[in-house]
């Protein structure tokens, strides 16, 4: 990379920051493509369908009755901010998937939001402790502007994969680009290899 005249690094870089990312500190930028929805937990549900043995859905009460699971670590947005050392609580997607029973042919998922937003992920990126349905942030209910009452959380990928206002996931035997992915963003989105845009 050509050096920019006059530009200097600001001292030691935090090793938790992937390339091209900066530490947003206490800020949590809000970036939406759509209007913020108003969702009632009374009518909220989460579904798993597609290539599963038992298409399933959970109400707000039912999903809270499952064993809880926490995430403590970092999140990374493709617009180059990262937040370090954050905590989320909810349920592991493994718990939900084991109830639904993915068929051997399932290779990918499309996560869907109540707004119509979609995002695609390999099934392997949302299993084995890598993904959650999260409804708490730093010990408090997840704010609506950050996807509350519940969002998908896949913190090892760029954060547009962590669908806000998530309504469910659909299992497929092929990859099917979601909203941002149809609009030029990467199908996988690994921040450590900077999979930002289609073709990266």
């Amino acid at each position: 990379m050509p050096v920019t005249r006059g530009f200097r690094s600001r001292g030691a870089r935090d090793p938790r920051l992937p390339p091209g990312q900066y530490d947003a500190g206490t800020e949590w930028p809000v970036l939406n493509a759509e209007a913020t929805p108003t969702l009632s937990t009374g009518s909220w549900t989460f579904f798993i369908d597609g290539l599963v043995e038992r298409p399933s859905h959970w109400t707000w009460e039912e999903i809270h009755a499952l064993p809880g699971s926490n995430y403590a670590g970092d999140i990374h947005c493709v617009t180059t901010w990262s937040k370090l050392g954050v905590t989320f609580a909810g349920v592991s997607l493994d718990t939900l998937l084991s109830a639904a029973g993915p068929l051997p042919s399932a290779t990918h998922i499309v996560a869907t939001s109540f707004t119509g937003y979609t995002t695609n992920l390999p099934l392997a990126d949302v299993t084995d402790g890598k993904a959650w349905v999260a409804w708490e942030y730093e010990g408090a209910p997840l704010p609506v502007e950050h996807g509350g009452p519940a969002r998908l959380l896949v913190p090892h990928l760029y954060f547009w994969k962590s669908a806000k206002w998530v309504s469910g996931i659909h299992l497929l035997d092929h990859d099917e680009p979601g909203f941002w992915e149809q609009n030029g963003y990467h199908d996988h989105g690994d921040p450590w290899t900077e999979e930002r845009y289609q073709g990266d």
Partner: protein
Amino acid sequence: MTETTPAASPAPPVGSWQQSTVVAIRSETATTRTFRLRLDEPMAYLPGQHVVLRLTAPDGYSASRSYSVASAPDGSPEIELTVERLGDGEVSGFLHDEVVVGDQLEVRGPIGRWFVWQGEVPALLIGGGSGVVPLMSMLRFARQRGGLGPVHLVASVRSPEELLYADELPGPDATVLYTRRTPAGWPRPAGRIGGDDLPAGTDPANPVFVCGSAGFADAVTSVLEERGVPADRIRVERFGPTG
């Protein structure tokens, strides 16, 4: 959002990094400057798209940020980026304090295929503060094509000192409203955007592009929905995917 069906064809890859030369720097407000860059490789962009700008230090450290293109595509190899200086902004501070005409800056783009207007249908553009930048590309594109464009821009700013592109706004196709303090003699009192600020005859079937803070976008969405604009006609953006 209704456009969640698979696209007819995959989006083309974003161009690779390239060098550009700063050919002009213009102050828009006390905290905002426009940088005109001449690209080594011309970039075919659409009004509303953005680019990533990357700074690299001698030790290999780099910092990147996304900036909306403010100019309209006109076949020239030059683009304009309007950059607001953020409090402790590593990149915006450098651009404001260090960069001079003749410097080289790395850019990549164009990026974003959702928040774009190509002139195919009339559109309403509503921007808050520096959120007016990508909308200015759309307005300039419409003006460049001649006559009164099929767009109307509503720009909301706190005070006259914070208005970007003051030599081009307001106009017959652009309304400016002030939320805290107006210029002397301004007909509209200072206050937040309301239904009366939308141009008469707005067709609810046409798209509305909204850019600004999350609070601004939510307020505008409420105003639009009260006016009968369906949520799926409203496109909201602040530089990229959902965080």
